[in-house]
């Protein structure tokens, strides 16, 4: 029997190669698991029948030809793309086929998946709790044995944070290494597609499949070196920096701190040199900066949903009223809030003070990180200040929700890659450990993450499902 809770994608490829299992059997096993557990979890918005390759789940903002793609928004209900996103094409070319599209916060705006226009996703470790977000559907699907692996997207932490809350591995790649062509845009200068997997090796395999320059996305570049699937079990020669502000930030739960501290200690035991460092301005201004840049770009990116060409249309007396009624009915509160914030930040007379200033701060954040990387190869911290919180706990308080990403946002603003690996439990719930590297340092992150993963021996199967 195929144990979908434990099967890694790497093993799945091996089984298929050896002829021990067919891709159809694999799909059948996952569809059976989905039938069994997804009524409760609601990780998927829809599944598809395409058993040609190793199954993979896509966050519902990855355009899939002929398969409804909503980005978690009612305004796109019924929208079927006429083209595949580049990452979808690359997955297919690497021997994968689509299992289904996963739930998400509407237009990737959120940290709990409660902002989905189609109902929240539950955390497989505790269905009373959120899986994180915005890639909560993908995280829950992988953690709950409903997909061997999945693609998520990360703007402010939307891969790393749900990976942390669901006890899986998530990579936010260097900005510009993975094509955004066909990805429903939230904040173009920050959005990156990232792999969400059970192991670091799977993560490297999936990153290898999707990364590299795409002529359809002008902001992509060729990788400076090939992606290596990690083997090494030690961290000899690695210089690990512990940024004070990221590890001592207000609101980090004690259990989270303990798990992270144990992991830092483990780095030392595995041969790394560990030292303290500082990112004062990045952490102080990162979140504020993000909440100007991302909503500003979102206000423009979401303006195309006007009811003229696709998706929802609510008729009105004239075109202006049609726009207003369509957008009022189609967007949830969070997109509306961010569209207003963003339009304001871009307005004449305010641009310099807000969007312009935020872009300057971004440069400062990048410089501060670059300075830290003169002394260290990776920087580490908890991924999320908390473990998975209860459904509804922060839903009514947008600011508390925004703080969920306070540790992931600073390096995202600098365009840097970050890997989250599970490093232990606090109150019976997974804690994620964030590894941040310089641009294009994914191989270093994979090597570090792999060695730690083996040393930690975290069991990715949620306790209640073992």
């Amino acid at each position: 029997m195929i144990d979908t809770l434990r099967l890694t994608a790497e093993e799945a490829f091996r089984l298929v190669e050896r002829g021990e299992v067919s891709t159809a059997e694999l799909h059948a096993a996952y569809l059976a698991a989905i039938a069994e557990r997804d009524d409760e979890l609601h990780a998927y918005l829809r599944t598809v029948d395409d058993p040609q390759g190793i199954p993979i789940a896509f966050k519902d903002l990855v355009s899939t030809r002929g398969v409804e793609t909503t980005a978690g928004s009612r305004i796109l209900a019924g929208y079927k793309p006429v083209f595949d996103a580049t990452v979808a094409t690359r997955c297919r070319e690497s021997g994968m086929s689509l299992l289904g599209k996963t739930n998400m916060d509407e237009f990737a705006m959120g940290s709990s998946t409660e902002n989905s226009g189609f109902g929240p996703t539950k955390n497989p470790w505790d269905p009373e709790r959120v899986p994180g977000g915005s890639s909560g559907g993908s995280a829950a699907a992988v953690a709950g044995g409903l997909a061997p692996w999945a693609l998520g997207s990360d703007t402010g932490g939307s891969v790393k944070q749900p990976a942390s809350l669901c006890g899986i591995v998530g990579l936010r790649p260097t900005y510009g290494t993975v094509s955004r062509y066909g990805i429903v845009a939230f904040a173009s200068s920050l959005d990156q597609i990232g792999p969400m997997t059970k192991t670091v090796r799977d993560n490297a395999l999936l990153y290898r499949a999707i990364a590299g320059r795409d002529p359809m996305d002008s902001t992509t570049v060729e990788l400076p070196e090939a992606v290596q699937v990690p083997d090494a079990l030690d961290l000899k020669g690695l210089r690990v920096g512990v940024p004070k502000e990221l590890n001592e930030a207000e609101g980090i739960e004690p259990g989270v701190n303990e798990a992270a501290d144990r992991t830092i200690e483990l780095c030392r035991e595995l041969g790394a040199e560990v030292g303290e460092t500082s990112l004062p301005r990045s952490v102080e201004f990162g979140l504020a900066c993000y909440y100007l840049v991302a909503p500003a770009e979102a206000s423009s990116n979401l303006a195309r949903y006007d009811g003229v060409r696709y998706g929802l249309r609510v008729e009105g007396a004239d075109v202006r009223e049609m726009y207003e009624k369509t957008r009022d009915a189609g967007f949830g509160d969070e997109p509306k809030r961010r569209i207003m914030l963003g339009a304001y930040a871009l307005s004449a007379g305010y641009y310099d003070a807000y969007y312009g200033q935020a872009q300057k701060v971004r440069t400062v954040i990048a410089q501060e990180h670059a300075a830290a990387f003169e002394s260290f190869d990776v920087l580490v911290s908890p991924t999320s200040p908390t473990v998975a919180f209860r459904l509804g706990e922060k839903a009514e308080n947008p600011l508390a929700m925004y703080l969920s990403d306070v540790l992931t946002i600073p390096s995202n603003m600098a365009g840097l890659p970050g890997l989250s690996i599970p490093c232990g439990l606090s109150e019976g719930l997974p804690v994620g450990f964030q590894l941040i590297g310089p641009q294009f340092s994914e191989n270093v992150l994979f090597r570090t993450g792999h060695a730690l993963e083996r040393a930690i021996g975290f069991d990715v199967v949620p306790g209640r499902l073992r």
Partner: protein
Amino acid sequence: MNWEPVIGLEIHVHLKTRTKMFCRCEVEYSVPENSRTCPVCLAYPGSLPVPNRKAVEWTVKLGLALGCRIAEHAVFHRKNYFYPDNPKAYQISQYDQPMCVDGRLVVPGSEGESEVGIVRAHLEEDAAKNVHLGSAQGRIAGASATLVDFNRAGTPLVEIVTRPDLRSSEEARRFLQLLRQTVVELGISDAEMEKGSLRFDVNVSVRPSGSDELRTRTELKNLNSFAFAARAIEREVERQVGIYESGGEVEQETLHFDPGSESAPPLRSKEEAQDYRYFPEPDLVPIEPPPELIERLRGELPELPGARMQRLAAELDHDLAADLVTSGRDALYERVPGDRRAVANVLMNQFAASGVDSAAVNPDELGKLIEARSRIPRDRLIEALAASGEPDFTAEGYLADGLVADTSELEPIVDRILEANPGQVEAYRGGKEGLLGFFVGQVMRETQGKADPQVVNELLRAKLTGYASGL
């Protein structure tokens, strides 16, 4: 008080690239609506723009031809606004870092040269075409439905903005004609107003002559021909002068002309300062043309029409030189031997009317024809010019067919006509000298146009006055 018009122009030129600005759709209008579209130009979720290399190069070329500085670092911006012709709800354009800045175009004119400053030339994408049904004058207000044709959406446009350096409608017309000829010769646009591949808006204000103040301007939109633009500018200048002279103030507003009809009065609208929330387009990287590319493109520039106008004006006058160059017939002019002014005049008049392609003409044969033009009957000359584009054309046959200038041949005819029209002869002698034309016409008819009009004139005058004095 004397008033001086202050005129600036904003010109949009459609580049004739094979594909659109940010996607691979063909640029093609004579095809069914919405048949040249894709996820990018329809703004489907997740689609991304990729700049058209040719369009970028051509904009650099145009910038060089206009004497602009080519920016080392140009940035595309998003211009945000909602309208059904704008599928992304933003237009990708350029804002404070355009590709070409600070150029000039020297326009020769009868009162000397005038230099018109070019503030900027930038690259952007065009909008879709809307057809509003069931409303007055095809406007969106009150329309029962709006049809959108996205074939035009995303086609490349260059916008050129001049300084307010133009001082008359005539100067504006000359500038536009020279600019048009420049883009046509660069091979980057058809620049045809009827097809909409050249469009322009005019900013007009007036001020007391000699002052350097800039007063409130109005903007004239949708002008569909150079001649109409010149008339519209004159009317607007008069209107503004009238307002100031009666103690009023000109209001900032836009005058929208009906592109379908020159006679319809323009619709006025207050200029709202619409907030386009410009910000750098995050889906594109800055354009940084390498110096080698700029030098290669500079090397590809032909001798520009402005320079040729100046050269030809030395041997003709400015008007004729400008007309030759803007008509594209100056290359032929330079190859046809003979009296310069005569060649220029024939090319701009009778030859122009023949519709013959200048490139097909043998200049030496055409030169012979022009040299003998006064000895060839008018109809035959026109026939000859019409045939001058044919591969084996020679002037010979038409020259042999010269005019009858021999008085011994013409005199009996003249006598016959005077005898047959005693009443008119009487009237002429009574002072109605305008009747000369009548007699000339009779002689020409009699000779089937082959009589030399000059000789006929002289003969007639001599005979008519001779008879008079003989009395």
